């Protein structure tokens, strides 16, 4: 599993990472800096929606608990605006309605904070492979 799987015929995948906590974004960028993705970072739903307006995005990784809009709501928007994008949620807990919403929106099991570095990378790769094969 050395190196990105899609480098052969495709340009670097564009990832949008959304979290109201800037240190999370910072840690994510650190972690993913060698993965060969183009990383777009948004500190909150408003910034995220801006990016979605402007860029084609392959994958959105989004925090669940954010001021103004919950992650599942934002991912609902993502599905409407860019149906081809993979959608992933990351949560620190504290939302007991989440399970219901995941089922409703057909989202995969979310990542949890704190995350393992390898698990994060693996999940992103798999999710990208999934949307690319569709």
């Amino acid at each position, binding site marked *: 599993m050395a190196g990105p799987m899609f480098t052969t015929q495709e340009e670097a995948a564009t990832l949008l990472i959304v979290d109201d906590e800037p*240190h999370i974004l910072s*840690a994510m960028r650190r972690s993913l800096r060698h993965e060969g993705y183009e990383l777009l970072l948004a500190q909150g739903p408003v910034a995220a929606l801006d990016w979605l307006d402007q860029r084609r995005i392959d994958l959105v990784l989004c925090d669940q608990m954010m001021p103004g809009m919950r992650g599942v709501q934002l991912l609902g928007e993502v599905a409407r605006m860019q149906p081809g994008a993979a959608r992933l949620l990351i949560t*620190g807990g504290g939302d*007991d309605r989440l399970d219901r919403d995941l089922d409703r929106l057909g989202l995969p099991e979310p990542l949890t904070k704190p*995350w393992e*570095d390898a698990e994060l990378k693996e999940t992103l790769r798999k999710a990208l492979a999934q949307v690319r094969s569709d």
Partner: protein
Amino acid sequence: MAAHPHVEAVRILVVGEADESRAASASEFERVLGRIGDGVEIESRSPHEDLAKDFVPDRLDLLVIDGGFGPQAAVLRQLDRLAGFGPPLLVVLPRADDELALRCFRAGADQCVCVGPDFADVLCEAALELIGDWRAERERGRVEKHVEWLEGLNDAIVNRLPAALVVVAADDAVVSVNPEASRLFSLSPSQAQGRALSQVCPEALYRDAALGDLVASARRGDPPQARRARLYDGERLSRAYDVQAQKLDVEGRVLLVLNEVTASERQAERIDELQRYNANLIQNMNSALVVVGPDARIQFANPMAERLLGRSPGELVGLAIADCFAPEDTGLSLLTRALETGERVQGAECALVARDGCAVPVGVSCSPLRDAPGRTRGAVAVFQDLSEIKQLERQVVQNEKMASIGQLAAGVAHEINNPVGFIHANLFQLGEYLQDLEGVFDGVEALQQVIAGGGDAAAVAEASQSLQGVAEKIALDYLRGDLRKAVEESQEGTERIRHIVRDLRGFSRADNDRSALADINECIDSTANIVWTMSRHAVTLVRDYGEVPRLRCRPMQIKQVVMNLLLNACQAIVERGADCDVPGEVRVRTRARDGGVWIEIRDNGVGIPPEVQARIFDPFFTTKDVGSGTGLGLSTSYGIVERHRGEIRAASEPGIGTSFEVFLPNQTNTDEAVVGGAPQPTPDEGAR
């Protein structure tokens, strides 16, 4: 004069003019008539006076009319006036005058006497005779009247008294019955007469009163006895009689008196029933009932009272009620007041002290005991054992605390997981960075060795080149900057976690909450910190703390109230949804007022619908989704504030927001019992 019959206490009235024209002078009458007996009283009156006004006829023995005055017609007029007055009339004429005497007799005189030689003797004789006759006549009259009275009495007793009378002959045959008995037997008197008592009397009555025995016993001359006969119609008392038998004469006749007492017997049964009912109620009621006399000593205690106080039956009676309370307990002062002023007390909470010294929490209601004129004769106190309720209440408080803590924990977990998330990721990266840096360290070491080994310029340049290559490969410039950033960010993360944990620690002490002097602002602030930690995404917290006194309270319970209110406020803001333009805001305000502290927690959330507002303090009432609230938060808060003798109230307008106000009084001398739970030793507060 001894030859004359003698009479006593004679009253004679002489009617005559007070002048010389009289047949005999007043003094002469007194002298003559005074001889007829002992204690003769003689009075004189003018013929013009109204005698009926001064004299009662029955009290006079004789009326003497002195005919000496005026013409004959005047005498006759007097007679006419006095005839029929009552006492015998004796006319004294100044001289013998047969014709006048005759006319006098006709006019009603009983005797006429002329003044003459034997006047004194004749007068005395005539007077005595008339007096004797008159007295005899009066006596006869009295006897007749007495007989008449007796007959009336007999009639009243036999015929009108509501008692059945039966005379029974020696052979038990009925001799006579009165109308009441005739009604009782449903037989006319003549039908009853001659038949055996057992045949005429209703069987049940005859049997129940054992009339045969009763009559026989009376006939033997045994002391009279009374029996009560009760006749039933099914379960219901139909009639009751008091029966007495009395021997009448030597021939063995017996009088039976049957008095109907159905009404009073029914009343007695009813009273009996009521008494049994009351006794049953008092004996079996689930509350302790104690009657206290004016001397503040127990006069009566029901079994529940004995059980509650750990006493054996009867042991409480005579005990001073003060011995059943802890010294200076509120219950005692309430009871004392009820005794002194007759005031009623409803549902106050206090504690009784059982024999073993254990305090029993009770609710007390107390009302004065009054006698018929309305004077206070003591007090009735009813105690409701609250031990179980208190226990449940503590459980509810505990459950609710757990529920809020659960709710809180979910929020707090999120807040801790965020920093832990990036700290964890950063540490992993720092490890990678370190690995990259190993290459730099190796390069530096190699360069040092080349220099120390006196290597030539080319060798140094090569080593330096190699180090440069490593630095470029690992992007050392970036790494250097990011290394510091990663460490700083992680440090900030641990700092945040440290704060959250510090605030949470307060709640971990919830189980050993004791009454203490607490700074209300501090209580609110530490609670607000935690709640805000989890709600900061949606809510701005505005803290407006006034100068407030430290209050004696149970700080953890107060924190729980504040937490419930803050959680509700944040929830109300979250429920507005994402579209709301106005930023969510919760204002917390404290002020010293009304001898205590007012806490206001105001939000601009969804508000409480008016139809729900009255129920928000009800237990288990919730508008939250099933599973997200126990519905006990506000009712528990209400209970806590009430136990602090404070006040909690809400004002809300849908779409505008809600404001909760909590008042906590400054209870400097408050005992532990007020704030709930059994007294606990107070340890060193500073040790916490």
